[in-house]
């Protein structure tokens, strides 16, 4: 079978579905493909998202997938010193804990509503190219093999990022640039507050990463962690079991879901466009290297990618030069910020547990009036310039 679309999007996570919506809205004939039989499954994510991106991209929060609200972040040092950041009760920003199984389907539905075709259970296993220019994808699905020709391919294939590699862009992650993560969705547990996200830093609990507890209800939460693949001495899921078993408030809980996944934390890919190709989201390493959070950037990148792809098709010019509008725009929107957080990560990740304790102690009493990573970093630099002198310029 041979089909023809203006834009083919590979991967229906947040980046891909928002890209498909944007391209379809801009008038393109769009096909959104995903290897999974059920979008959003398996969950590979802590499921926390700030409200800003939803408002800006006009995705109206719905309690079916924005299942819980949080407004406090508690960061705990290896010896147990807690630093709090709280949004104001009135006028503060809302953090959502999502149900990705519903959220991802909702975003795909928005793409469908905008006119995009969708094909699930369909594995893209190669590119069609013509003298170096990408001109489509090869796929296999419930109805057998197919070749989909498209003027622009949007690679939103997640952490694996195989499409970019087929096109000759090296997106292979080093073990230093991969957080390997595991998560339990737990019920019947206790925690400090249902509106507080908890983060635990310690080389023993999670080397090169952290443990999180993100509440999903009064006695339900995502309890997960990421460890740097190059530093882990055990399987991430074993670190997680150890954490849960060591905490009286968690050990009597029950696990109703196990998740696992890899998070790219080496900073964004330098080259995110080629003739006929755009790379977005985890595939482009659009992830905050310090926190591992990426839904926000993925959606923003997807929105720009879809719009630029559709415009380029309409103009009859899908060259790398034309598509580089996408690269310029995401760089301007969040590229610099990710670069800054990468620098911070590279410094912080090499701190000993004693040094992390020192930092926590230095800012323990500070009253943060919003949850802001950059505000935290600025205060840390000011309070403990000796440890963080390397970061004075960039922050």
């Amino acid at each position, binding site marked *: 079978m041979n089909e023809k679309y203006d834009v083919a999007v590979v991967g229906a996570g947040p980046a891909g579905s928002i890209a498909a919506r944007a391209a379809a809205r801009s008038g393109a004939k769009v096909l959104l493909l995903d290897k999974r039989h059920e979008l959003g499954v398996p969950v590979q994510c802590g499921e926390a998202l700030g409200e800003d991106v939803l408002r800006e991209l006009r995705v109206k929060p719905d309690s079916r997938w924005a299942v819980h609200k949080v407004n406090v972040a508690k960061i705990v040092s290896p010896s147990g010193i807690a630093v709090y950041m709280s949004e104001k009760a009135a006028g503060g920003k809302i953090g959502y804990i999502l149900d990705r199984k519903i959220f991802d389907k909702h975003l795909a539905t928005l793409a469908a509503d905008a006119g995009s075709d969708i094909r699930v259970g369909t594995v893209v296993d190669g590119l069609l190219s013509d003298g170096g220019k990408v001109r489509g994808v090869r796929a296999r699905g419930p109805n057998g093999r197919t070749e989909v020709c498209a003027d622009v391919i949007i690679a939103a294939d997640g*952490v694996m990022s195989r499409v970019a590699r087929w096109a000759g862009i090296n997106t292979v992650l080093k073990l230093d640039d991969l957080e390997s993560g595991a998560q339990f969705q737990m019920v019947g547990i206790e925690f400090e507050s249902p509106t507080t996200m908890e983060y635990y830093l310690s080389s023993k609990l999670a080397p090169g990463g952290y443990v999180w507890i993100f509440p999903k209800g009064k006695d339900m939460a995502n309890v997960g962690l990421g460890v740097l693949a190059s530093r882990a001495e055990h399987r991430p899921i074993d670190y997680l079991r150890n954490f849960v078993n060591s905490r009286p408030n968690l050990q009597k809980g029950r696990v109703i879901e196990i998740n696992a996944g890899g998070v790219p934390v080496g900073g964004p890919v330098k080259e995110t466009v080629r003739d006929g190709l755009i790379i977005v989201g985890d595939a482009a390493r659009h992830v905050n290297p310090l926190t591992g959070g990426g839904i926000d950037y993925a959606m923003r990148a997807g929105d720009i990618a879809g719009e630029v792809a559709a415009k380029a098709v309409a103009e009859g010019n899908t060259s790398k030069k034309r598509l580089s509008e996408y690269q310029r725009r995401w760089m301007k929107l969040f590229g610099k910020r990710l670069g800054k957080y990468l620098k911070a990560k590279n410094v912080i990740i090499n701190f000993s547990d004693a040094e992390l304790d020192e930092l926590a102690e230095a800012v323990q009493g500070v009253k943060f009036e919003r949850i802001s990573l950059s505000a935290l970093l600025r205060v840390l630099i000011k309070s403990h310039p000796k440890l963080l002198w390397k970061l004075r310029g960039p922050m």
Partner: protein
Amino acid sequence: MKVDASTCMRCGACASVCPLNLIEVSDAQVKVGDKCTDCGACAKACPVGAIEIERKI
């Protein structure tokens, strides 16, 4: 490399570090191309320890 299908969660962390882009993860299976050199990167990346490397001597 060998994947234990009952432990594997199909997350794709292995594929992200495969230097030869040989790993395809789908709902049904993890497929590995025949040029695998057993370098072991995938096993280190796996969150659940589903990958075993058979060292070639």
